[in-house]
């Protein structure tokens, strides 16, 4: 059971990474980041069976931080959208050297 759970976690994480790397839409990248966080949460929960409740405590922390991150991240995306009228990251390159 543990192996399946970890495998699923790895698959979800990889999907998240690939999404972050390949997609252009900021909202979708954001969702992929959430996917990666939750894949890690799944690993924590699965491994807490072996190593005790500390993993589950961490999951609570992660979800709290993810919630805060979602609030700040979405606010930034809204601000950017108001400014440049797009959420396509290819068009947002103000940091170009």
């Amino acid at each position: 059971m543990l192996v399946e759970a970890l495998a699923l976690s790895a698959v979800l994480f990889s999907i998240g990474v690939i999404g972050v790397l390949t997609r252009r839409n900021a909202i979708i990248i954001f969702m992929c980041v959430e996917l990666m966080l939750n894949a890690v949460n799944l690993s924590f929960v699965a491994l807490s069976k072996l190593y005790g409740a500390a993993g589950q405590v961490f999951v609570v922390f992660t979800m709290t931080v993810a919630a805060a991150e979602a609030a700040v991240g979405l606010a930034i995306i809204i601000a950017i959208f108001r400014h440049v009228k797009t959420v396509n990251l290819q068009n947002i390159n103000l940091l170009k050297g």
Partner: protein
Amino acid sequence: MNPALIPEGAHPLAATVARFVWLLPLLPLLGFLINGTLAMLGAAKVGPADPSADHGHGHGDAHAQDDAHGHGVNGHGAHDDHHPPPRHKFAGIVSLIGPGVLLAAFGLAVACFLAMRGVEMEHPYVVTLFQWMPVGDLHLDASLLLDPLSMTMVLVVTGVGMLIHVFSVGYMQDDPGYPRYFAYLNLFVFFMLTLVLGASYPLLFVGWEGVGLCSYLLIGFWFSEKANADAGKKAFIVNRIGDFGFLVAMFLMFANLGTLDIGRVAAKAAELPFGGVVITAMALFLFLGCTGKSAQIPLHVWLPDAMAGPTPVSALIHAATMVTAGVYLVARASGIFSMAPVAQLTVASVGALTALVAATIGLKQWDIKKVLAYSTVSQLGYMFVGVGVGAYTAGIFHLVTHAFFKALLFLGSGSVIFAMHAAYHHTHNHDDAQDMRNMGGLKQYMPITFYLMWIATLAIAGIPLFSGFFSKDEILASVFARVSHSTLAESSLLGIPGSTVLLIVYGIGLAVALLTAIYMTRMMLYTFHGPNRTGEGERPHLTEAPWVMTGPLVVLGVLAAIGGWINVPELLGAIGPVGGLEHFLEPVVGQASLRTTLGAPPHVAHQTELLLVGAAIAIAITGIAIAVWRLKPAALVPKKEAPASTGISRVLENKYFVDEGYDAAFVQPTVSVSRAVLWKGFDAGIIDGLFVNGSALLARAFGWLGSQLQTGQVGTYAWVLLIGVITLLGAFTLR
């Protein structure tokens, strides 16, 4: 003679006024500080910001322009309104302090001299003021050395210096830089006394450099004209070459003798092998220093240019005192030179050659000060012949008499230029006030100057009983006496036996005596005799200088006439005490002198000596006669109408083209190498191009590379992050 043997307090002079010897240099230093302060205060007050100073400022500018076209004197009468120009606001107090400190110093010097006459001067009197440089094995004190030699020099410097200071009060009276002038002059005397009284070579060197600085400042005193500033720089730079020699000589002394104290160096030098490489190198490097300071070949080129300074400066620094420092140094280092006969022969030969070259150039100069400048170079050569053959007293004797008659000649020429300049100002004439072709017949306008300058001319020409006769004759006799039975005769220079060298030097000495009589008579004839060549407008304004200028001339005239009596030769024992200076200087240079003549005083048969003196007199009279017979002052035309000279006179008038030669050989290559390699190549190419701009370019290139990494695409950053994470994880897991 080791000064360490006798403690300061035990010296017989310690109980006399001589213990205040430190006041001698201090007095002119005080004068410098006061006059220098006044000069700065005066300069600060006369500014455009101060409306009340407007009047004075306007006059100051007028003066600056006088300097720009005048050759020296900033004479009065430049103003159309015929009001006398206002003197400098501090002129009164400066005129009091400038010559005043010199008078005080001269008084003290005379007192010291009288005290010295009263005691046995077997050992020099050394007064230590304070510890100067205790560095490792080198212990240098600031000590003053008072012995007969430095006493003689102090008397000349303060005495002649005082007279020239007084003369300057008249000569410089309307100059806007009046306090600055006296500040420099006082500073010069301070350094000159340091040079003369220094008890160690480094302290002497401090004075040596200091007088060089003052010389530079005073040659370029009217620096608003570029030629004057350039002359100052030339003097300074040429002197640096000589100073290099002096420094190397001091290094050699410290390396081989372990001391720089003048007395100890002399004592230890005697222990070195006689005529060895070390002692010869030491003497020759010292002499290189002397050729710079005393304008001997090949470093003689600066002195004629130094005439750009005010004429009293030429009299004091470039005739009577500073340029004779080299002669003094050879006499002071007699303990070294007498151990190196090859160096001695070099000194005598260079002196003789310089005397001859300068005298021939003097034959064809038209500028009255240039004639005197070359005459000075020539007479300095004479002095080096004297000290070179080990006749230190004869050299110093000629130094003293030369200080009298050459200071008189220079001040007399200053008086002439002053009168010419004043006359030209009345008519706004811009002719050369120093060119003899513009003068002529001045004897009826300035009789006092005329008679006094003839006295000096007779003295320098060597007419019997005038001062120059005694000293010049003693030098020639000393050379002749050493042709046989001396260390010099047994030595050789460049393969020529020493006795032959000495005979040649003696022959050149006679020839120079003839030339001296000719060019000096020529100068007098063209300046004072014949018809007057100034214009109708100037003639009524030619007058004798004020008493403040003629007074010092009279005193110097008396000294130039009778100065020879301080050292009457045995031959003329009937007219006065024999060998006064000889006896006086004996404790200092006697030992070294005897070493050259193999322990016995030089002796020439009575008849031979009579013959030599007779020949010298005949030559002097012949020279004057040739000049009077051949030269026709009446045929001379003013400078602007004179045709260009040709042939050998052109070569002489252009000083054998030595300046041009040096320019082509040293100055132009230095300039072009500096321009092409050092400036364009190294400074602009390597320093500016490679280092400064190159490092900027490098930083910019790295910056550009870094900026290319910043695409602004979040995707790129994410990829980089991922690759980094994988790399790190891989590195940790695969390790």
